[in-house]
């Protein structure tokens, strides 16, 4: 199952990760490798474990067994074998290596757009406020919001807020960007502006793992698509293969059929 589209060493290695919430197994021995510069989208019915898997990568969720490594370094545990949890300080440092964009934006409402981006730069990266401000302005310009640097989140539209959310994540120069259904909470007419930003980051070589229901985007922008069902990776491969109508994977075919029926 652990396939990579090319021969470069994997930046993200997820190996046999399992997790249960009480009696319910949400992840069943999931393995996945993501190479530097890859854009991997995860699709699947709700409850299939997509979001949980993504949240394990930056240890917002712990997992019961298995290993997740970024650049060869175990994320949540000092040692995968003993499963000794990293210290708070270590965990924070590890999390700074990944960026995450949330479905519900989660901007800090008491800080301006620039302030949201500057917080991690000053507190975590140790940059001075002038430098942090310059970086924030650079990324705001990049997501088309240079004129909104001093606006509070409540003064921005959903699409604008999510673009600030993306800028906040990438300004930290993470090794990998995690995107969790980032357009699901948006009005349909605002989805395009957010996806355009993601696409341009992909073109710049940002490594991304993205949980999404935007099939057209997954098809056009992904290096590979992962189809998850029942907590496991059911299919993985280039978009053309995974989204092929003649797939023999029964679950995938049902999912795609239902999707086509409701979305196309």
């Amino acid at each position, binding site marked *: 199952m652990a396939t990579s589209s090319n021969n470069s060493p994997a930046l993200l290695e997820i190996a046999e990760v399992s997790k249960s919430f009480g009696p319910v197994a949400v992840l069943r021995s999931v393995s996945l490798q993501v190479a530097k510069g890859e854009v991997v989208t995860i699709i699947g019915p709700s409850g299939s474990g997509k979001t949980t898997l993504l949240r394990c990568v930056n240890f*917002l969720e712990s997992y019961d067994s298995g290993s997740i490594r970024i650049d060869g370094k175990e994320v949540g545990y000092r040692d995968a074998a003993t499963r000794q949890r990293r210290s708070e300080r270590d965990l924070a*440092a590890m999390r700074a290596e990944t*960026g995450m964009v*949330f479905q519900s934006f989660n901007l800090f*409402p008491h800080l301006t757009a620039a302030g949201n981006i500057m917080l991690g730069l000053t507190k*975590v990266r140790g940059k001075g406020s002038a430098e942090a401000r310059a970086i924030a302005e650079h990324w705001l310009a990049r997501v088309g919001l240079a004129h909104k640097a001093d606006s*509070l*989140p409540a*003064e921005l539209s959903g699409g604008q807020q999510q673009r600030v959310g993306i800028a906040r994540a990438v300004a930290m120069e993470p090794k990998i960007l995690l995107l969790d259904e980032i357009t699901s909470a948006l009005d349909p007419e605002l989805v395009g502006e957010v996806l355009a930003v993601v696409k341009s980051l992909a073109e710049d070589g940002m490594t991304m793992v993205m949980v999404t229901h935007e099939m057209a985007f997954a098809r056009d922008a992904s290096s590979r698509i992962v189809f998850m069902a029942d907590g496991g990776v059911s299919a993985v491969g280039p978009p053309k293969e995974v989204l092929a109508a003649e797939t023999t994977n029964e679950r995938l075919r049902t999912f795609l059929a239902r999707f086509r029926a409701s979305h196309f």
Partner: protein
Amino acid sequence: MLSQILYALPFLAEGFAVTLWVSLLVVVLSLIAGVLLGVGLVYGPAPLRWAVRIFSDTIRGIPILVLMFFVYYGLPAVGLHLQSFWAAVLALTLFKTAQVVEYVRGAVASIPKGQSEAAMAIGLTFRQRLTSVIFPQAFRRFLPPWINGVTDAVKGSALVSLLGITDLMQAVNQVIGRTYEAMPLYILGALIYFAVNYALSYASRMLERRFAFIRD
């Protein structure tokens, strides 16, 4: 009548000073203790959480007057003699602290989980998440009920008169005892309490506006 009241004014002013002094002590001490215990209640280890929970539930379940008499008349039985002034301040502070604990807990709990997660995701440590993300937001939710509680503290301070402390309430009663002008003096006393609390409410509205998430 008017001359008698004018004559009593310096005496009333002294009482008013005691009322303000008691209120200030109670408000400041309960703020410090309540914030510390409230943060302990939300983030502390289990034994601390239980201790704060028991403290808060117990104190809030006792009438404040009972608490005050208990501190003044009851504690000497275990060798703790307090002057009436400090017994009153201690009782009122305990009572107010239990309230502040609940305001803090409520304010922190009202911040959505996504805020902590977003703060974690950019690599902030626990302490940084509290100081840079959670507390600045919780402060805004804490402010309105707390200011309300401050006005309660000013009004509640009138209870200290029952331990024989000459605050505004007691001063008014004493002047009435001399002049028999109950009606105008109670109205005067009420007006003074009202003026203080109205000023506090006004200040609180200014503060809330100052810290709103949307600017005017």
